[in-house]
Structure formats: structure tokens, C-alpha cells
């Protein structure tokens, strides 16, 4: 009797191991691969470049960005990332990190913000904006998201973002919520966070900018949103446009209290 029990226990043990192993090969191996790469997240290279760009004298005015006001006063960058997007009185707009950087690059350095906004991702000054956003996000790593909803424009942006999130359209009738409106779902093997509520530390809004292993590119939130819209079969959303900013406010406010892990590492 004892022997039988022992053997059956062994059998169950073996089965469990086998099943666990089979599941691991399907999903967990991707996580393992990511964990392995996290030892040396290539985003560190972009961080270093971003820090240099912040201090370097550049542009037609040959000035640095050190006096840039990211919402906490000129030159204060620690903790700024987790409070963006927010309303800025000088521009009269709600701005996220990337669109605010364009304002600073124009006002302090003399670059043409509209030109940079029109430049494709991964080209020209856009590369520098991404590097700057990467470094600035790293300066708030581990901090909790805390976006203001005090200004009416911030409240409007949240409500607009919510409507955009549920906007069904295009040939496939997709909205953001088609993929990100339920708990515990996947596209193929990719886990999908539910972004209609707080998805938790380091998930969704709290994980960008990120280095994408699959294509070897560093992406800011603007590019992430743009690619979501691309896959949704929507037309092209402008860089720093009202739509992408409002979306950032919706996601950022929903993530209140979640810790930022940016710059993160993605598949």
C-alpha cells in the first residue's frame, strides 16, 4: 500500500513536471528570454545618449536643454516623467514628455518643433527626442504615476482619451478596447493588459519608452501609440497630436500609483 502510494505520488510528480515544462516551452520561454536580456538592457545606451543631449549645446541657438521646464520648474527632471502628460500654462496645452521636449528644443535651442513632429520615427531629430525621453524616464524609474487632473484641460484630455479608447472604426471595427478591454487575454501568445483600469506596476503606460528586442529599436510612447493605431487599421496619428496626448492622459491617469519601470525591455 505504502509502496503504491509512493509510486503514484512519483507518477503525479512526474506528470506535473512534464505539463509545467510543456507550458514553459510555449509561453514562459519568452519571459525567460526577456529576463536574460534584462541583464543588459540596450536602453542604457539610449539613456547615456539622452543625458548627453540634455547637457549639450545644440541647435541654431547653441544652447542646452538644462533650463527646460518639464512641469516641476526649469531644469527639474527627477520625477517629472511620472507626472506627464500635464497642462502647461506657457503653451496652453496638455503635453506629454515627447511633445514637451519639442517645445523646449524650439524655445531654448531654436529647432523647429513642427518639422521634428513631421519627421518619421527613427529619423533625424526624432532619434534624439527618443533618447532624451528614454533618459528622462529613467530618472523617474521606480516612482509612482501621479498625473494631475486639477486643470480643466487635463480633465477634458482624460475624457477625450476615454472616448478614443473605445472608438471603433476602420475595416476591422477595432478599438483600443478590442485588445485591451478585458482581463487575461492574449493575441497569439502575447499577453494583453487591460488598460481600462490600473494594470499595475510596470505594465502598459508604465513600461514605455522601451527597447524592442524583436526589431532592435528604442520606442517612446508616441511611437507605441502610433503602432497600436497602425495595427488597428486606423490612419496615421500625428506626433504629439491631441489624440495621442489625450490617450496618454487616459492611460496615465488610469495607472495612478503604478510604478514606472521605463525604460523597459519588450519582445
Amino acid at each position: 500500500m505504502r509502496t503504491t502510494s509512493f509510486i503514484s505520488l512519483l507518477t503525479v510528480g512526474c506528470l506535473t513536471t512534464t505539463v509545467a515544462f510543456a507550458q514553459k516551452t510555449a509561453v514562459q520561454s519568452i519571459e525567460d528570454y526577456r529576463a536574460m536580456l534584462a541583464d543588459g538592457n540596450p536602453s542604457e545606451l539610449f539613456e547615456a545618449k539622452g543625458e548627453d543631449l540634455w547637457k549639450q549645446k545644440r541647435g541654431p541657438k547653441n544652447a542646452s536643454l538644462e533650463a527646460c521646464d518639464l512641469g516641476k520648474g526649469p531644469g527639474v527632471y527627477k520625477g517629472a516623467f511620472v507626472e506627464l502628460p500635464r497642462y502647461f500654462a506657457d503653451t496652453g496645452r496638455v503635453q506629454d514628455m515627447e511633445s514637451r521636449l519639442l517645445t523646449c528644443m524650439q524655445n531654448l535651442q531654436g529647432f523647429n518643433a513642427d518639422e521634428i513632429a513631421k519627421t518619421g520615427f527613427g529619423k533625424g531629430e526624432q532619434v534624439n527626442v527618443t533618447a532624451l525621453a528614454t533618459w528622462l524616464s529613467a530618472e523617474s524609474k521606480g516612482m509612482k504615476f501621479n498625473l494631475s487632473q486639477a486643470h480643466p484641460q487635463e480633465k477634458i484630455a482624460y475624457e477625450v482619451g476615454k472616448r478614443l479608447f473605445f472608438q471603433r472604426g476602420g475595416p476591422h471595427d477595432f478599438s483600443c478596447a478590442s485588445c485591451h478591454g478585458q482581463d487575461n487575454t492574449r493575441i497569439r501568445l502575447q499577453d494583453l493588459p487591460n488598460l481600462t483600469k490600473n494594470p499595475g506596476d510596470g505594465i502598459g503606460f508604465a513600461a514605455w519608452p522601451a527597447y524592442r528586442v524583436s526589431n532592435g529599436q528604442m520606442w517612446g510612447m508616441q511611437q507605441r501609440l502610433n503602432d497600436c493605431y497602425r495595427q488597428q487599421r486606423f490612419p496615421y496619428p500625428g506626433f504629439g497630436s491631441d489624440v495621442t496626448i489625450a490617450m496618454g492622459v487616459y492611460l496615465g491617469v488610469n495607472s495612478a500609483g503604478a510604478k514606472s519601470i521605463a525604460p523597459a525591455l519588450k519582445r
Partner: protein
Amino acid sequence: MNQRNYFSVLAAVGAALVMALPPVQAQQSKPTAVASSGNDEVFDFFYREAVKSSFRSQGIVKVSVLDTDETNRACSAADVAGKPLDKKRAKEIEAMNLKTIKWPSDGKFVGDWKEGEKLAQSGRGLTYSDDAKTPNGGNCYNCHQLDKKEISFGTIGPSLYNYGKQRGISDVNSPASKAMIEYTWGKIWNSKAYNACSNMPRAGHMGIMTEAQVRHLVALLVDPKSAVNQ
């Protein structure tokens, strides 16, 4: 009716002006008042303005794809409100979509399941980075389990493994399986005919799949020989 619309737009613009006050004045207003549901028309107004000013046509995707139909508008509004459509409205939308279904011109519902599997695997086509020649995929595996051998499947939709077998389809030409096969065609052609705010695209209705391709997808699900039913 026209007059009412005109006034609601005016009201929205008026409220919009109030909220777009210069910063100092705006800060004096009470944000709590802004958050009240009475401002929904204002928020809707700004939402429409944001969409208009932010998107541009790119490649094969024109901004006109956002001029969506009554079905999507009703479902989006229900999503924003956080409550499903009432039953009567849902039935109306389903009936409206049911009317659009184009049944096979030759009466043949079932094609080649192997072609269906290829379409189910592909999630390509119709993005702004695709060109017009990119063949459209059916996107099936993105959300559904189908052939059990394919472990990379999504879970937004229900598992369709053994779809035909579970529904007792042993012969696609038998009168007993006719109703289920017709429903399968209809569901793929226009999913909203059976569930008003379904997450599933309307593959035939929106021109994502051709009639011949829908036939292959039906075969993938119902043909007893299909990998789905093994």
C-alpha cells in the same frame, strides 16, 4: 430635429469656450464641475475635434475609414458609458447587420479547409504600412484556438477547436447540418448580426475577405476532415 442638433452644437461650443479660458481664469473654475456627466456633450465635441485634427491619411488608409457606421457608433457610446446596449437596441442593430449578409451566390457554403487554415494564420493587410497588393489575412488565430497543433493562438474569442465536431457535423451536405453551416457563414460575414457589439470584425461585410475566402474559412470550421475537427 435639425434645430435641436444646431442648439446642442451651440451649447457644446459655448461650454468649450468657457473651458478654453486663459490659464489664470481657468484655474479659478471648479474642476469638479467639469467632471460631472452634464459635460458629456462637451467631451464628445472635443473628442470629435481631436480626431479631425490628429489623424491623416497614410498609404492605403484614408481618414474616411473613421467615418464609421451606426453599429460602431452605438457600441462605442455604450462602451464609454460603461453599460451594454439595452436589449431592444441590440436587437435592432443585429437585424440591421443580418440584412447585409451576402449568402453564397452559387449556394455553396463550404470550400477548402486547407486554404482556410492559411487565411486563419495570416493577420496581414489593410494597415497604413501595407500596400494595396498585400493579401488580407483572416486574423483568426490572433483571437481563437483552431487547429490543436497550433499553440500560438489568442484568447480574446472562444476556442474553435472541434467546432464542427462539437456541433455534430459529420457530413457538410446533410440537411441536419445546413442551419449550423449557414450560421457559420453569417457569423464570419457579419459577426454583428448575432452579437451587436461583438469584438469580431465583419470579414465579408467590410470587404476584408472575399466570398471565396469566407467559403474556405467555413470549411476550416465545419469540414469533418479539417484539422480543427481532429
